[in-house]
């Protein structure tokens, strides 16, 4: 993998009146990487994407793809990016092959090559059987495949897909995941936004978390998870409801104010989060055993991208609330 970034934004900012949609965003992606771009609605993901594909001009900062400036050379950018917006943008009364033919011709793909490119794009996305169907008659999942096939027509090095898994059933989601991994294997750099975080975690090797126009976390999935892991979630399985009450009381007494202890008598379970190390966990377990609480399991829960996302957004909310209180 070369060090030259395929996609790079430097201090990218977009301001609408007194609203900052994007605040000094700096990210860097290399060839073959898949970036999972996550954040709540209105976080600035679509604004970033639209700047990258040349649909929006940034207020300040720089965005480039393959070294080409996204604002100054929007014409070249169009050849370098395959963009799939969150809406399909269908043309009624048109068959899939005609739809792709139009975009192929728009990208000035010579007629001789166009048929092969259409067939290849449809084959990669598993949509070859849809070639003669009318676009408006396709189901949502089928449309998503055709939309990805469209982005592949001119063979761009970077694909930007806005919510490709949105509205897909589980089977279609698995297929979509395979399509995206296949594209990355072919050397494409992908930027994918999604609200389905477990799906993203399975395909992305880079993650960017945004809230309120700001980049809150950026790095490989492991780096992001390590940042989140400063808080560990422990789950204790007990044998009776009395044990649950007793264990919760002991933990609250010993873990201090920073820890959150939750009881679930119906599951006979107590959960708590802590910033403590292995030593402090051993002490907590010892206290429970000494107090004759009957513990059947004591385990650390695995955290995923969803926890990372929630942790980052929660942290942001706290910061904003603190800022407002100060003001």
């Amino acid at each position, binding site marked *: 993998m070369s060090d030259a970034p395929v996609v790079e934004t430097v201090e990218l900012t977009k301001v609408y009146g007194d609203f900052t949609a994007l605040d000094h965003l700096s990210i860097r992606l290399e060839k073959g990487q898949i970036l999972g771009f996550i954040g709540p609605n209105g976080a600035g993901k679509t604004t970033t994407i639209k700047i990258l594909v040349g649909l929006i001009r940034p207020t300040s900062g720089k965005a480039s793809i393959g070294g080409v400036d996204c604002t100054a050379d929007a014409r070249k950018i*169009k050849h370098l990016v395959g963009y799939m917006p969150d809406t399909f943008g269908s043309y009624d*009364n048109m068959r899939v092959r005609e739809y792709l033919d139009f975009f192929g011709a728009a990208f000035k793909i*010579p007629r001789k090559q166009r048929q092969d490119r259409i067939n290849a794009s449809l084959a990669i996305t598993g949509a070859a059987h849809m070639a003669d*169907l009318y676009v408006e008659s396709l189901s949502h999942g089928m449309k998503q495949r055709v939309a990805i096939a469209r982005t592949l027509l001119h063979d761009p090095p970077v694909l930007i897909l806005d919510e490709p898994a949105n509205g897909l059933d589980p089977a279609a989601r698995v297929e979509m995941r395979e399509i995206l991994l296949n594209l990355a294997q072919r050397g494409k750099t992908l930027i994918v936004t999604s609200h389905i975080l477990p799906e993203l975690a399975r395909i992305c090797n880079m993650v960017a978390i945004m809230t309120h126009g700001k980049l809150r976390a950026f790095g490989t999935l492991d780096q992001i998870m390590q940042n989140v892991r400063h808080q560990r979630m422990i789950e204790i399985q007990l044998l009776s409801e009395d044990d649950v009450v007793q264990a919760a009381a002991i933990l609250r007494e010993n873990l201090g104010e920073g820890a959150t202890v939750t009881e679930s008598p119906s599951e006979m379970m107590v959960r708590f989060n802590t910033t403590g190390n292995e030593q402090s966990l051993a002490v907590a377990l010892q206290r429970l055993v000494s107090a004759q609480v009957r513990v059947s399991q004591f385990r650390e829960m695995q955290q995923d991208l969803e926890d990372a996302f929630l942790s980052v957004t929660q942290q942001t909310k706290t910061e904003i609330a603190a800022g407002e209180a100060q003001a």
Partner: protein
Amino acid sequence: MNNPIIRREFIGALRKPNVAALEVVWLAILAAVIILRWPAGGRVNLAGTQAQQVLSLLSWTILVGMMLVAPAFPAASVVAEKRSGTLALLLNSPLSPAAIYRGKLIGALGLPMILMLLTIPAMTACFAMGGVSLVHQVLPLYLIFILVALESAAVGLYVSIRANDVDSAIRLTYAVLFVLDLLLLIPYRLVVNTQDPTFLLVGRWLASFSPLPALLHVLGSNSIHAGNSVSGGESVITRFVICSLVLSGVLGLLSIQRLGQWLFDRPRASGKVTDERSTQVRAYRRIMYLWFFDPQRRSGLIGPLSNPVMVKEFRTSRFGRSHWMMRLVGICLIVSLGLMLAAAYGSMTFQPQTLGELMVMFQVMLIVLITPSLSAGLISSELQNKSWQLLRVTPLSPASIVLGKLLSVCRTLLLLLFATLPGYAVMLVIDKGQADRVVTVLITLGLIALFCLLVSSAISSWFRKTAQATALAYALLLGLFGGTLVFWAGRGTLFSLSLVAGILQFNPLAAALATIHAPGFADYNFVLTNWWFMLTVMGVAAVVLVFRTWRLTRPD
């Protein structure tokens, strides 16, 4: 008002800011009509001539207003709900299809009724002048207006239930009403000189679907065109009442029948192409459709010299495919040949000027009716469907997009214009001296086509909804081509001849009719002024279109 749909439709319509604007404009128009013909110096003709003139102008204004406004909301009403998914929720509620239809119909009639109430002050002012009968004129006039609104709403709802998108529903509704209100008058016009009672009866009843004969009858004129009577044994008004009620009732029943759960019970198009069918089917379709015109043919790739946007427009437009184009051209040829036949049989009654008048009217009507429907959605539909951003991420230049879109409509218009040429050939056979005039008319028609195309396209680039762009394009073009003829109809009585001549010089239809020396237009000569007017507007429209397209393709 117990029906929740009535409440929602009616109040929903009243909440729209453009409805408030419409009411203000409506009141201003009514006030202008009254002020325009209000007797100067406070003196009124005791014979009631001035009052009748005011009543006539006011009635025409209300009728045209009803014809334009009443169909708009019902035409979009059901199909919009179908598209947004709320119709399924309504059908899933305890409301019966009849209750839904009733709610939609009454809700749709709300706005026309308000507009009609707003006409009462103007009508009262007219009545106060004296010489106007309440029983024989005012009440029948309101009956006609109410029936026009009812008929328009019934047609609009029926089309809306069957249509698949809002734009086509609106276009089709206006097209159907155009046929009912104007085209059905033509058969009577053609058979009026024959003495065949069956033809006369059929022609008379067909004409009774239109409110125009009834309105003219109430206003004291029995003519629908050049002094030809449509009054028969029974009253013209009675016939109109019967026709409009029967039509509204039948359409209502059909609509209720259609408004069932099975409205959505449609399979997805299988997309089967002829190339994949059995040998027999393939052979049959290739012969029957002459291969090229087969709608199920697998189309070839876009050629290197073709503008991709133009080809895309042909393929996405419902009537852009070759088989539809051929159907349209076929209809034009049949009409053209019909006119030739009529000229051959009726050479005693048809003068070349009359034939020319019919040809010009027919072609201008086609152009004015078809062009906005093809071009008012060129840009707006892309913005509405959000496919514009896909165009923006392609390397297509704004010039290429504009050119492709305009060419797609130009081809259709050219085919339409060429299809009606045989009629002019007949004119020249009858009278060779008409050659110069025919050439001038053909140039005018070409300019009219380009004029309508550029104006509609420029409007399209300013709107994000095709329905709005189409409505404005139609309003402007119909106002220019048809609205200014109202002044011509009232020449010498309501309006001075100089005013009429001044206004008509901006009407391209009047210029073409004047060139062909059509009856009533022979005294005018303003073709050059009109050409300059059209060229100026076309220039402005082209600049607007290119600028807007360029702006829309730029980064935000």
